[in-house]
């Protein structure tokens, strides 16, 4: 088959150009380090790489949200730790004040320190993080968590917990109301308190006090009832204690008064309370009612400060204050410690998530790299091959173009 001279040259030039293009493409790949510069280089790999990138970006953002939560939890946990320490100090002071040897003189100093501790606790409750958000404001929009009005500390946030994005719902705030202001009153089941009989003059000072009581038989406890312990009799013939239940209900409580022995347990309806001291019949009475989740740390401290700071109180009154105070402190401290440990295991959970997500990111990045990155060794060898073949095409052209019959016809 004959070949026209023009087409011969055209073909050689064409071949050279194609080899050159191929060399250039290979060079571009080497320079960029990527096998896939545009989707048409390898559509399925490009799509995989894109999906891997999207996963990586998503995990990165989730990691940041996680970190925000972790930082928050660290701060909140540490704040609660400090709060518990302060409460321990309060407890010591209360115990100290209950010491009979302390006397009236030392109590004002104790009351003053209690006031200081109360302010410190309020500061902790209103602690902010680095961006100005209040740790304990719950779902509050940005205002402070607690405000100290004339009538005690109130919660200014919004009950509830703000969570970060993601299915794990890691916390970004603590429900301050629940932690600081909703501890269970009394011993958790019922609350005992001194309540003078109606009509008793304000100047009357009791000489009897009641302890926190305990549950003897949970099945018999009737948590919807309020009990009143009133007293009859006198010092000479002996005191009796009468228990009334309101509402009466069935089976009826034994209405007969029982003998009152100071320090002896009085049992009824599955609970046992102990009254000590000398009651004043017709004046002194004690109330037993269901425990409510309405005990506030600050109210407890305020009450302690007021009562311990008041001069001229009877031993019984002081004992009652100390009794009630310790009981309430234990309950409120319990709430703080519970939240603290809750944050603790949440932080563990977050650590686990963090390491899983870090692995996930690594996997996504590896997948992306595998899809679109160039195998350098293969590429360099390929490039050298193309260089050689380009060189060969050039040489071939140089050799062939000299071959012509005209060279030999002289």
């Amino acid at each position: 088959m004959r070949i026209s001279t023009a087409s011969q040259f055209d073909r050689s030039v064409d071949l050279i150009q194609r080899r050159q293009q191929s060399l250039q493409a290979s060079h571009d790949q080497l320079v960029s380090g990527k096998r896939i510069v545009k989707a048409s280089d390898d559509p399925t790999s490009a799509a995989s790489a894109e999906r891997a990138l999207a996963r990586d970006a998503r995990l990165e953002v989730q990691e940041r949200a996680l970190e925000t939560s972790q930082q928050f939890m660290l701060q909140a946990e540490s704040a609660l730790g400090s709060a518990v320490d302060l409460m321990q100090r309060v407890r010591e002071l209360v115990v100290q004040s209950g010491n009979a040897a302390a006397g009236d003189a030392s109590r004002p100093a104790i009351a003053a320190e209690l006031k200081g501790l109360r302010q410190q606790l309020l500061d902790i409750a209103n602690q902010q993080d680095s961006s100005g958000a209040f740790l304990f404001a719950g779902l509050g929009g940005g205002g402070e968590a607690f405000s100290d009005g004339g009538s005690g500390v109130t919660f200014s946030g919004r009950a509830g917990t703000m969570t970060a994005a993601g299915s794990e719902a890691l916390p970004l705030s603590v429900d301050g109301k629940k932690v600081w202001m909703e501890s269970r009153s009394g011993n958790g089941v019922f609350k005992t308190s001194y309540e003078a009989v109606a009509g008793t003059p304000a100047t009357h000072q009791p000489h009897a006090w009641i302890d926190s009581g305990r549950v003897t038989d949970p099945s018999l406890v009737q948590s919807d009832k309020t009990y009143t312990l009133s007293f009859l009799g006198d010092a000479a013939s002996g005191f009796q204690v009468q228990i009334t239940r309101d509402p009466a209900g069935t089976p009826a409580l034994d209405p007969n008064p029982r003998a009152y022995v100071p320090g002896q347990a009085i049992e009824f309806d599955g609970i046992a309370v102990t009254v000590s001291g000398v009651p004043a019949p017709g004046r002194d009475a004690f109330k037993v009612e269901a425990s409510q989740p309405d005990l506030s740390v600050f109210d407890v401290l305020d009450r302690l400060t007021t009562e311990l700071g008041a001069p001229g109180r009877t031993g019984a009154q002081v004992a009652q204050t100390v009794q009630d105070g310790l009981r309430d402190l234990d309950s409120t401290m319990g709430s703080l410690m519970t939240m603290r440990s809750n944050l603790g295991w949440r932080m563990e959970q977050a650590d686990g998530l963090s390491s899983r997500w870090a692995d996930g990111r690594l996997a996504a990045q590896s997948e992306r790299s595998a899809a679109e990155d160039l195998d350098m060794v293969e590429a360099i060898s390929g490039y050298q091959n193309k260089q050689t073949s380009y060189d060969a095409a050039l040489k071939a052209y140089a050799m062939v173009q000299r071959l012509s019959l005209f060279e030999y016809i002289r």
Partner: protein
Amino acid sequence: MSAFSLLSIGSRAMTANYVALQTTGNNIANANVEGYSRQRVELATAPSQSTGQGRLGLGVDVKSISRSHDQFLAREASSARSTAEMDKTAMSSLSKLEELFQPGEAGLGHAAGQFLNAMTGLASRPTDLVVRQAALAKAQEVSMRFSGAARRMDAMQADVKSGLDEAVKQVNSLAQGLGLVNQKILSFSSAQGAPNDLLDERDRLLSRISEKLQIRPVTAANETVSVFVSDGRPLVLGTDVRQLTVISDPLDANRSALALMEGSQARLIDSESLVGGEIAGLLKFQNLDLVHARNLMGQMAAGLVSAVNQQQRKGLDLKGQPGQDIFFDFHQPGTGALPMVRSAATNKDQGPDVKPEVKIDDVSKLQAAEYALFWDEAGAQWTLQSSSGGSAVPVGDAQTQLGFSVAVPPTLDTDSRFLIQPVTYAAGFMRRVLGQGEGLAAASASEPNGNALAMAELAEKSILGSATLSDVYASAIADMGTRTQAAMTTSEISTAVADQAELRRSSADGVNLDEEAARLIQSQQAYQASAKVLQVAQSIFDTLLQAAAV
């Protein structure tokens, strides 16, 4: 015995060989001229004379100077080149289009993902103005990438139009040239035949025209050529030349179409009937690939805008007010809304009120397609045919199957045709309309970050069909990439075929310099020999004269 006959033999031989030399020289001179067919001298023995000694040859005559031309190979090469040009044009346009669907950090999908991911950060710090502003900045970035891509597609459309204009101009001037050549060919008598160089010129013009547009040439007995466009209409009929022109597509005025001027009227040439040439490549790219790319992008834009705006409206902003749209809602009827209905230019004008109305019902069901709306005689109902194929959908089913509904006025002329484009141009309408960070509706009624939590879920929710936005984008990349890859392969193959066909043609018709060099020597020797014959004849004559002298 005659000395004259020897003289005439010699001189005729010299002439003949001189003509052969000239022809060879002409071939050598024109070796590199495009489309030149080598010429051959056809020598024939002169009729012999009867003499007493037997029949005596009277030398050689030049019968003709013929042009080596294989019509079949030439047509095949021309047609293959036409296909190759079409594929090459389509491929290079697609390569540019593919750049809009970039994988990686510079791509649309990443920007959209970054914006949706910013909602996670907003959920962590819902009242932080810096975080809000950063989220809005990402919203701006994604709308700019979409609208930027839409503008580039508009630029590509403009390139198609100007490419078509240029190609049509060239075809028209080539057609004019062909008409003139036909005229010149006619002026030569049929006995002598047309000159070879005119025939070469004619074939060259045909080949160049077919590079731009596949044509069917028909050669008449008088060697003139008529050229027909693929749907059978004539472009050149002998000396009568028509013009091609570029008009707006009757259905979508943004697109171009080819038309043939018949008199003063431009009659549309159906783009689907064009099967080769640069013009066909441009039209194929415009009508298939560019439309598809617009639809892909528009679908994503619509999905993103709808999902984000809807969620935004469910929440409360920093001032406690219900959230306003973050992105412009182009599907909401009103000023500046996306136009979704185009009337064919051939429709009867029934006034501005009598036209179909389109309402978007469920963005997640929208397809990446546009639809032709026409009256189906067989089913006696208005029907929608999707640009991405599939069976026709009656208008009544559009809401459940396609995500939008079409209200057709009962008086609408059944000959009318419309183009329904729910998403085609949507990407260009994407813009951020929420300017202030406080406007982000992060809060729900109960939690300061409640709505932000829901917005953070959007990245993993099915926004379009059953796919998340990043999945949709990854598929779009693969789609365009596969198209481009296929176009590259097709182009490689058709270029190789065209090169092969050209090689075969030029091997039959082209000049081989070595061959011409050999013939040069051959003719030169023959010429020298003939000259020698003349010399011998002359010396014989001299001898005769001397012998006869007294």
